[in-house]
């Protein structure tokens, strides 16, 4: 029962969605849309499950005094502050339980949830991702050593695209006469992106698409069951 019913649900739903593609009449005609709506609602609960699980894991680490447990208190407090601000005073477009609370908006200039989002979340996320620029520099040093034909191609393509897509590219090749316009770095970068890159991406897309189709069939037919877990 614990495995058979979920397997049947997957088979039934997957088959209905596939069949509905070929029968544009009721009830099949709009079944895909209905199931898509249900999928969205359950996914919403799945996101909440993820956040609650994070809360639970952090709480467990604090209660067991795991290494660096003090830091997890900070994430729990921030999570709760964001939650309380969002529920009580709402967001930019949504009123909270205490409606729009103009007094607080006049104090912060924004709703508390949006204030935290603008000055903390935006700055933190942009800095986190910009940090990768430094690690990419060291990764490039390792990856861009032209040891064989393949890595040389990778190096040349990356350098040409980077130069061609910035102002330095047009400055470097600006002196080349118009009769040799195809040697301008921006044009070379465009050629790489339009044809060479598209060819590689297209091969990956077609093969990955076939892979997804194969995996979907395995799931619908119950051959692939790993999503059900161990027991």
């Amino acid at each position: 029962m614990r495995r058979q019913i979920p397997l049947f649900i997957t088979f039934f739903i997957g088959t209905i969605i596939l069949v509905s593609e070929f029968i544009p009449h009721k009830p099949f005609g709009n079944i895909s849309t209905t199931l898509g709506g249900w999928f969205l609602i359950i996914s919403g609960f799945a996101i909440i499950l993820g956040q609650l699980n994070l809360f639970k894991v952090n709480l467990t680490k604090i209660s067991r005094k795991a290494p660096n447990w003090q830091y997890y208190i900070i994430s729990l407090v921030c999570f709760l502050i964001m939650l309380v601000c969002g529920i009580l005073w709402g967001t930019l477009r949504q009123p909270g339980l205490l409606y729009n609370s103009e007094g607080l908006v006049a104090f912060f200039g924004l709703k508390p949830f949006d204030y935290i989002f603008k000055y903390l979340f935006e700055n933190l996320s942009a800095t986190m991702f910009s940090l990768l620029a430094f690690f990419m520099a060291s990764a490039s040093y390792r990856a861009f050593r032209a040891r064989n034909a393949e890595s040389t191609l990778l190096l040349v393509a990356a350098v040409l695209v980077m130069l061609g897509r910035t102002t330095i590219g047009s400055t470097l090749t600006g002196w080349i006469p118009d009769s040799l316009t195809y040697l301008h770095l921006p044009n070379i970068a465009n050629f790489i992106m339009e044809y060479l890159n598209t060819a590689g991406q297209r091969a990956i897309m077609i093969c990955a698409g076939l892979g997804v189709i194969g995996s979907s069939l395995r799931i619908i037919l119950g051959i692939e069951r790993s999503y059900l877990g161990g027991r």
Partner: protein
Amino acid sequence: MALIMERIGIWVGAILTFAIFSFLYRDNPFYKIAEQIFIGISAGYWFIYTIYNILIPNLFTPLLTNFSANLLLLLPALLGILMLCRLIPRIDWVSRYSIALVVGTTAGLFFKRYLQSDVINQMNATMINPFSAPDLAATIGQLILIIGTVTGIIYFFFSKKHEGVFGGTARVGIFFLMISFGAAFGYTVMARISLLIGRLDFLLGDWLGIIKP
């Protein structure tokens, strides 16, 4: 007061920016604090976002405004609650029903979507007459496009050993894939550098006021 709070917000943002950048030296308590603030705020943000933008408009509002017409919505609501049971180890198996529906829907939708957009449409776009292009560069480009796509696909065919003519063709495919990866890498580097420029713009402009807009 709003102006003072804005300045405080900018100062907090600048301090957190330096706390994150301190990781470039080595892992330290300032980075750890900023990291945990980021995790907590992100989790809280997505929690509230999900409630206001997914659950309220798609589930609660239809049920509260016209319960009888939207009775069927109780089913995904029930499955959603079953999903949350995963947090209780004794009855975590009931969440499989919800996961089964999500996996079944995803498998069915992805089958159709990928077949149409990633297989048929891409093959369609490759089946072109390269000699109908307006100029020589475009003709050469389209020939390269066809050769690159076909050889790239051959590289991904692992049911036959890559040797002889087949192996040689697959090797040409690898060259195209490496160019593609190189271009993607170049773009990623540029995106990260532009984020870094954005951070410097924030520090030197919003915070210190050295750069004027």
